């Protein structure tokens, strides 16, 4: 119960900070909407090409906007030595990872709640009665991305060139997650057989489990000097 209290305290503190300065959510939202808007003007409205590339554009927007949010979410913790303040607290340091992953999923979820409907309208994508499945795919993709991103943004937050280091370190590792998430989303948006979608979703779930557990176990070691 104490662990849950510590996780909640960190999440509440992060959300309160974000509510006051809005720097993470706003930067992610602006970036993702610009990506969707730019690609919308590139293709002919309602074209088959536009429909086929929509899932990839969506995940590119999530990937790069998420990178912005992850970087800020952890670098904020290193100002005024706040991370040391957290490390001094009498708790399992892996709880910081859990709280940060949940917080990052929340920020990215807000961004997706705006970006995805805008994209569906602009690109004329039909998801029919599979909205729930799309939400599940988005969640699974975001979970794996946030887990890997939280670990690597903690590593890069302590470096001088953190904005450059984070994507260089993180993007190669999250490729399997983004690939599986894009393929699952494409299967859904292009009306592929359910079996095809599930095959990619199983891969996505497997990578989520592997990466989340690995990052959780590694996090305490990353925090040490």
């Amino acid at each position, binding site marked *: 119960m*104490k662990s849950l*209290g*510590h996780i909640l*305290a*960190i999440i509440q*503190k992060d959300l*309160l*900070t974000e509510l*006051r*300065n809005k720097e993470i959510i706003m930067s992610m939202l602006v970036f993702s909407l610009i990506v969707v808007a730019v690609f919308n003007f590139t293709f002919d409205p309602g074209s088959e090409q536009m429909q086929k590339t929509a899932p990839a554009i969506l995940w590119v927007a999530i990937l790069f906007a998420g990178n912005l949010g992850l970087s800020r979410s952890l670098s904020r913790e290193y*100002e*005024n*030595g*706040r991370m*040391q*303040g*957290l*490390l*001094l*607290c*009498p*708790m*399992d340091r892996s709880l910081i990872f859990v709280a940060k992953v949940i917080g990052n999923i929340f920020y990215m979820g807000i961004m997706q709640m705006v970006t995805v409907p805008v994209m569906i309208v602009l690109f004329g994508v039909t998801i029919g009665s599979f909205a729930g499945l799309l939400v599940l795919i988005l969640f699974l993709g975001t979970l794996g991305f946030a887990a890997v991103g939280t670990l690597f943004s903690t590593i890069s937050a302590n470096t001088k060139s953190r904005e450059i280091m984070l994507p260089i370190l993180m993007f190669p590792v999250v490729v399997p997650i983004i690939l599986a998430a894009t393929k699952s989303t494409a299967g859904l948006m292009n009306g592929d057989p359910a079996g095809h979608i599930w095959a990619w979703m199983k891969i996505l779930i497997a990578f989520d489990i592997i990466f989340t557990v690995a990052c959780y176990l590694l996090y305490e070691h990353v925090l*040490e*000097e």
Partner: protein
Amino acid sequence: MIDVRTLSKKFGAKKALDNVSFTIEQGQYVALLGVNGAGKTTLIRLLATLARPSAGYIEIAGFEQKKEQQQIRRCVGVMTHDSFLYADLTAEENLHFYGRMYDVDNLQDRATDLLKSVGLITRRHDKTRTFSRGMLQRLSLARAVLHQPPVLLLDEPFAGLDVNAADMLKQLLDSLIARECTLLLSLHDIDYALQNSTRTFILKQGKLIIDSATKELHHDQVRKALAVP
């Protein structure tokens, strides 16, 4: 209360601490003196479990640093150059956050009492980004003692403070000493150390060259020990 044996810390080839040993009894007020780079901050970081020793043994309040880090963290309060405070949270919200992390009972009352004692009760609803350096130091001390730790590790707490803020901080430290709190302060102010501490450590190039009762030390002796060759 603090038992340190043959403690060493290396950063690459450089020895930041070299074979340091000492014990500090409960209620002692120890001034840690040394020039910049002598190893004061490294020693405090090691005691606070913020870094791992390269060699040696640390025990605080009966807990071994290698095996019982969480218990040690519960027993120590730490104040460094950094305030650890969140600029977008108010003074009260900062104390509430850290209070939850330390499972402090009666948190609301405890935070209010501390804000009164550090003279920030009227600013409790203000974001800490509006605070001066002295106010941040006082709030940082309140954060460090929030969970009533028996051991306080303070790294240059007077750095950057004006006379009034320094006086207030000194009064706060006096009240902690009166409560039998064990204090280890890294300082540059020789006069303050000689007037207030019960014991003095002098670190030089990572080595503990003086460990003495403060009353047995003279200003010139300390100055000579601190002189850079």
